């Protein structure tokens, strides 16, 4: 594995290896709960908590985890943090917990988290694992908030619940429905690809 600096570890996940937009990981929550910015933020924070917690723990305990059963141990650790997050959200912000529903529990199977444990945290010191988890979590949060913003603005005419266009705005309800999730992310990827192509043309031309 190539050596990287701490800065790289932090920044990599935010954009260049953004889990949602580039690696297409963790799509399930990215699409399911992003019908408004508030839910997106809550989901992103919960995921960040689980990711940071389990990365730290995995990195700290990596010497005691036998290779053969490490995946099971990772899942156990992740599931523990998810349960903690689930209970905490339920106790502290019950309204948001209700809106996110089962998708908080489904953070367990977010491939992104398991992927970071396997690919990074299990091989690096805790400091690096923390940076990587923060970066990846931030990247996840950025993608979720982007999706949530587009969907809330078009689908409800508001941002974080604040009305943007006045009462006579006709909301595009489809955007907060499931097709809107797929279409928004699809369109976002098209824009990204278009932008990248333009960059390449600029570089080569």
């Amino acid at each position: 594995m190539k050596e990287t600096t701490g800065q790289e570890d932090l920044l990599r996940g935010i954009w260049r290896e953004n889990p949602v937009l580039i690696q297409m990981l963790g799509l399930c929550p990215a699409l399911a709960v992003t019908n408004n910015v508030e839910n997106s933020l809550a989901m992103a924070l919960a995921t960040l908590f689980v990711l940071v917690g389990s990365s730290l723990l995995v990195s700290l305990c990596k010497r005691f985890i036998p290779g053969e059963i490490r995946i099971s141990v990772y899942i156990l650790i992740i599931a523990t943090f998810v349960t903690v997050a689930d209970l905490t959200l339920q106790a502290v912000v019950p309204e948001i917990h209700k809106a996110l529903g089962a998708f908080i529990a489904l953070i367990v199977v977010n491939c992104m988290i398991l992927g970071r444990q396997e690919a990074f945290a299990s091989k690096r010191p805790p400091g690096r694992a923390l940076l990587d988890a923060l970066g990846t979590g931030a990247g996840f949060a950025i993608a979720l908030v982007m999706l949530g913003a587009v969907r809330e603005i078009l689908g409800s005419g508001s941002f974080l619940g604040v009305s943007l266009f006045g009462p006579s705005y006709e909301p595009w309800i489809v955007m907060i429905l499931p097709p809107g999730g797929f279409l928004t992310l699809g369109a976002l990827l098209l824009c990204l690809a278009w932008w990248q192509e333009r960059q390449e043309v600029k570089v080569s031309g």
Partner: protein
Amino acid sequence: MSEGNVQAGTLPPSPEHTSSFKMISSLGAAGAAAGLLIVLVFGVTKEPIERYKAEVLRLAVSEVLNDPARYETLYVTSDGAIEASVPAGTESEAKKIYVGFDADGHATGVAVKDGAAGFQDIITLIYGFDPTSGKLLAMKVLENKETPGLGDAIEKDLAFVSQFEQATPPLAAVKRSTGAPGEIDAITGATISSRAVVRIINESLARLRAPIEAYFSQASAREEALP
């Protein structure tokens, strides 16, 4: 993609063999630690969570029973009897109802939570029913995934919701009500959702009306006998 990561992960990175004792003990240790942490957090959060749930229920019940002084949770068993508690293990067969009492201790009505399929998914609602007058007290939709801006009006449209106050079941969802008792004007463009609400209440009452009425007549008989 994701599977690739997980797949790659299943290849053992360390050549040396680990004894099964070590594996089991580390798994056991991890499991124990996880269990401990979870129980700890659960202990801390249990109280606020249950408080919130109880508060939500109390609000809903008091809304559909017009602010009773207090309410009691009772169980309607599968054979139609109403009990204050049921033996453990049979909760799922019994139906919970909430009976409201006024300050004098008179039973004023009963709130029932029920649900069924709507336009998109299950609609859950709670309604208050006064068996003495045979009229509904109110209806409140607790959960729905109906079309935003259209079907979800069953929860938000006050003109629709208020129709249930003092309506006489069995209800009927109609396009333009003629004033007959039990007629509910369906929401324009959300006929299916409106009908679902009406159907949930009708079917629920069809099942529960007789036991509830029996319970209330007994209760009033008791009251009359008491003083």
